[in-house]
């Protein structure tokens, strides 16, 4: 293979064996995404070849049973919910991490971290359930109907917060101690140190966290389905109900046949395209440093 010449250290036979074994495993890991995209395309192909990609963005509405397949409002729904939640969660998450490292007493920081780790694992169903029973009626009292873009943004914020907090926490921990000592020796106060020394040093990790939370915000399904109202429309205010691409698949998949089912796989493809776009953007900005 082409990359074996770069491994001039593979001199032992066991090392060769190991190299190949590892390459095989990595190839499996790398191919998963190719297989997924392949299957999505294969399943979406019937409707794509029948009506073409264009109509998914130009049809008057989304009524697949009657032959209308416009995905644009759901695309906007996904984008608005994502943007809103990332805008709120990013500062909250980074400040939380700063709290753990530079403000809280060690015992508090440790339990705070445990809390966040726990939240990372709570199923989206539980968040959605809570949102539906507690949050949605509250919003409904302020401005009906209640299930809305705002509810979606708030629930998403809570859900992606652990991701950005844990990533920010890890990258703050990687800031070399002598930077901090240097700042302390210069007599810099705490916030000035954080702003002027810690953040620039941890930039790449923080950035990775933002990318990861954006990915989660795009992909979240169950909780969004429960609190967003699921009406296919481009929202004109925070209180309008929306449907995201993911909720669209979850709501209709089990009930869809033929072209309708294929159209849902097109939704899946559009989601994949967004994720690939995100990964490319990340790579372009960080020049491949997403992996550290």
């Amino acid at each position, binding site marked *: *293979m082409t990359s074996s010449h770069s491994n001039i250290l593979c001199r032992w036979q066991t090392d060769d064996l190991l190299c190949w074994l590892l390459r095989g495993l990595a190839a499996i890991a790398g191919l998963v995404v190719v297989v997924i995209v392949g299957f999505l395309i294969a399943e979406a192909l019937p409707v794509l070849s029948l009506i073409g990609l264009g109509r998914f963005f130009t049809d008057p509405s989304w009524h697949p049973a009657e032959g209308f397949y416009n995905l644009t409002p759901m695309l906007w729904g996904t984008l608005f919910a994502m943007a809103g939640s990332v805008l709120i969660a990013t500062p909250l998450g980074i400040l939380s991490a700063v709290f753990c490292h530079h403000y809280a007493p060690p015992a508090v920081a440790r339990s705070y971290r445990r809390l966040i780790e726990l939240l990372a694992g709570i199923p989206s169903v539980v968040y959605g359930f809570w949102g539906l029973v507690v949050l949605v009626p509250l919003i409904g009292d302020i401005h009906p*109907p209640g299930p809305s873009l705002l509810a979606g943004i708030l629930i998403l914020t809570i859900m992606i917060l652990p991701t950005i907090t844990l990533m920010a926490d890890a990258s703050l921990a990687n800031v070399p101690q002598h930077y901090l000592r240097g700042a302390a020796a210069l007599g810099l106060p705490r916030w000035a140190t954080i702003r002027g020394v810690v953040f620039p040093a941890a930039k790449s990790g923080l950035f990775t966290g933002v990318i990861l939370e954006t990915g989660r915000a795009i992909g979240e399904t169950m909780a969004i389905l429960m609190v967003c109202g*699921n009406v296919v429309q481009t929202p004109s205010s925070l209180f309008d109900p929306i449907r995201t691409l993911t909720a669209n698949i979850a709501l209709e998949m089990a009930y869809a046949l033929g072209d309708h089912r294929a159209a849902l796989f097109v939704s899946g493809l559009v989601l994949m395209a967004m994720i690939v776009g995100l990964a490319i953007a990340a790579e372009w900005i960080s020049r491949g440093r997403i992996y550290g």
Partner: protein
Amino acid sequence: MYRYRDSSGLKVGHVFSAFLVLALFGAHDTATAQTTAPDPLSGKLVVTGSSTVAPLIAEIGKRFERLNPKVRVDVQTGGSSRGVTDVRQGLADIGMISRAMKDDEKDLHAFTVARDGVGIIVHKDNPIRTLSDEQVIAIYTGKITNWKEVGGKEAAITVVSKAEGRSTLEVFLHYFKLKNTDIKPHVVIGDNEQGVKTVAGNRNAIGYVSIGTAEYDESQGVPITLLSTGGVPASTESVRNGTFPISRPLHIVTRTAPAGLAKAFIEYAQSKAAHDLITQQYFVPLAN
């Protein structure tokens, strides 16, 4: 690039065939039970389809398993249309359908197990107790947008409808002679309980759900009220005596005339022995 893909593709194949072997090994017991059994009342029945019917069939299946210890009844949820396709493709032995059979489904053998009604619900604090069919149509098509116009309080109506493909939606549209494109919903929901929770959480909402679900929740103190339709109060009782206008049969279907295990199960599900389970799941047993 290509050479990578080739070699790794091979490896993927190896690993998966290894897993298949493992899996088959693990499944050895059940597989033999299925093939060597001379007794017709043993083996595995796969049932898929409507999420409305699934809890009921799962309960009937459990009791059937207790009566016939060698039988396994696997119930998978999804939707009525999935029940139809799975049965047609042979992925399932029995399909579950929560609506009347369509004309293009004549190839399947359908058996009615129970009945269910679709009732219109509002929040308990809403003074409205009845709506005419015309008013419901006007509300759902967006011609009436305030409760004041139908004699209620001054408040904007929140219209709750179901997602495309759900049988409840089809039954509702069929009764009111609407098309889904006509409906102007504010909230679109999936399963019944989500509808009940949405209406319970919003004083000005109107929705339609399975009557059994709504009646049970109402009795448990959930703040919703079932409205009368066409002058008939919505209740499992009026569905039972056939006076309630929006009702639907709950079917189980097979591709070929049922024989052996499937036949025994369908007969059991239709028998009086299953009636208490039907009532327990808040559906209406057939009067026979």
